[in-house]
């Protein structure tokens, strides 16, 4: 098994509060890796550090055998880590297709000259971009909403659109921040199928989730964060029976 992402002793402070304490974890290629923990455990902070929205205060990250230096989000996207957000962040007044096309910004080249003169290369790129966007919309199952404005989409479809936009960056690792939040059982089931499909197509998925049943049913391995520390990392069955996890996450001594 090849290691895709290795985080070593990541720490992050907000003023005097240490949000992440020496968190180390390893994600293998092709697996679905779950990151769980109670509210405020530092899951989203870890996400933001990983994707360059926050700068870490200590530790190293290696991605696909290359060190990931302190960098900005667009560079992280460039090496192949794409993400979605806990509280959906779409380009609300753009169409679904345009949202996905923006996601492909990195993998396209046209500049001002191409935009104004529409030379053959730009036209070809633009056509390929549209095709790719429609493919991705089809892949996540919302191709019929391609021309609708993002904010008019249903909640579940917005989640799907965000995943399509992230996929447009051609990621190796897709990081999903609570994708099932606010979804009903049917929608969650459909999401599960979608994520399993992603893995089947060779993508590695990092999943933050509150829905324990979804995490346990979907993930190959799970790490548990509590107060910024990793207290467990194992296959779901072992994590579930880990006394530390039960105490921290599943409700004390119950």
């Amino acid at each position, binding site marked *: 098994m090849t290691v895709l992402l290795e985080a070593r002793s990541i720490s992050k402070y907000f003023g005097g509060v240490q949000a992440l304490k020496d968190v180390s974890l390893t994600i293998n290629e092709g697996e679905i890796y779950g990151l769980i923990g109670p509210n405020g455990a530092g899951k989203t902070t870890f996400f933001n550090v990983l994707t360059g929205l926050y700068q870490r205060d200590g530790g190293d990250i290696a991605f696909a055998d290359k060190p990931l230096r302190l960098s*900005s989000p667009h560079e992280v996207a460039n090496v192949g880590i*794409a993400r979605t957000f806990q509280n959906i962040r779409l380009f*609300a007044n753009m169409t679904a297709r345009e949202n996905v096309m923006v996601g492909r*910004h990195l993998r396209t080249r046209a500049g001002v000259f191409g935009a*104004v003169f529409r030379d053959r290369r730009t036209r070809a790129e633009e056509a390929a971009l549209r095709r790719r966007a429609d493919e991705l919309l089809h892949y996540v199952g919302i191709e019929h909403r391609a021309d609708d404005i993002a904010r008019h989409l249903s909640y579940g479809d917005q989640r799907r659109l965000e995943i399509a936009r992230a996929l*447009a960056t051609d990621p190796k690792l897709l990081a999903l921040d609570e994708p099932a939040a606010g979804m009903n059982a049917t929608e969650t089931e459909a999401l599960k199928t979608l994520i399993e499909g992603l893995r089947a197509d060779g993508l590695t998925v990092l999943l933050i989730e509150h829905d324990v049943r979804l995490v346990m049913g979907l993930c190959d391995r799970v790490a548990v964060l509590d107060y910024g520390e990793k207290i467990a990392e194992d296959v779901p069955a072992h994590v579930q029976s880990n006394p530390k996890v039960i105490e921290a996450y599943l409700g004390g001594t119950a």
Partner: protein
Amino acid sequence: MTENHKSWLGMALIGFVLAIAPIVVGASLGNAWVRVLDFAALYIMLALGLNIVVGFAGLLDLGYIAFYAVGAYLYALLSSPHFGIHWPFWAVLPLGAMVAGMFGVLLGAPTLRLRGDYLAIVTLGFGEIIRIFLNNLNSPINITNGPKGIARIDPITLFGHPLSKSIDFAGITFTGVMLNYYLFVVLALGIVFVGIRLQDSRIGRAWVAIREDEVAAKACGINTRNIKLLAFAMGATFGGVSGGLFASFQEFVSPESFGLLESIMVLCMVVLGGMGHIPGVILGGLLLTILPEAFRQGAGPIQQAMFGEVLLDPEALRMLLFGMALIAVMLYRPAGLWPESRHRREMAK
């Protein structure tokens, strides 16, 4: 009739109206009104430039007129007896656009992290700094001639004919103001074209993405620093071209043409017309140039006719009506007079 035919017919119609407008207006209302049309074209160019920064990229810029000033002064310095340099316009205008674009980057670079009201304040300061520089750069070395301004600027010369002189053609006398009109309209159409092409491109989508959600835009791999700087530079370039034309047309520039009120006026054109929507911005530019002028000329005679005397100073009345119109538009059409209708576009498909 196909969609394509219709749009060609529409364009031909617009072209025809634009071509005869100065002749009709000149014959019926006089040359002063052709001059107003000239200024409308200049302001539309400015508004379209600002629309890139404010409308597309969502960066509130209150000092935009500074780029107009840079373009105007560069033209003045390189094409007047002030330094005795008389470069032709085809060299000075592109240079002015480039230098203004550089100033755009100069303003953009330190303000990248700022948004909304903070950005507005810094850009406002930038606009004032440029004006104050122009006002004071007459000592120790006289560069801008200070508050006295630079006079006797060369008019643009096309095919050996200076545009300040009238010409007879096909039985019609085309005055200098009319000749300038045609040049301005051609350039304004060019800017409209560039604006439309940019909007519907990878760059344009990146601008709108930043406006909609900067964090998400970054996560999508957009280098927001470069794309924002590009917006500032492109917007400033349009301002620079417009400024150069202004200098050649007026044959005189002074710092007082580039005050804060001008920046606000251009911003009003963008906001009133419909931010981010090119036809709306054009409408905004047209209305805000023509209506105040109509008030200025009409308010006196109307009062004279109604009350037998002029009760209110037309100038004061003009600002009052302008303010009321602004409030009314913001109350009843907050997205502008002619906003982008995404919905309608969807229905048409």
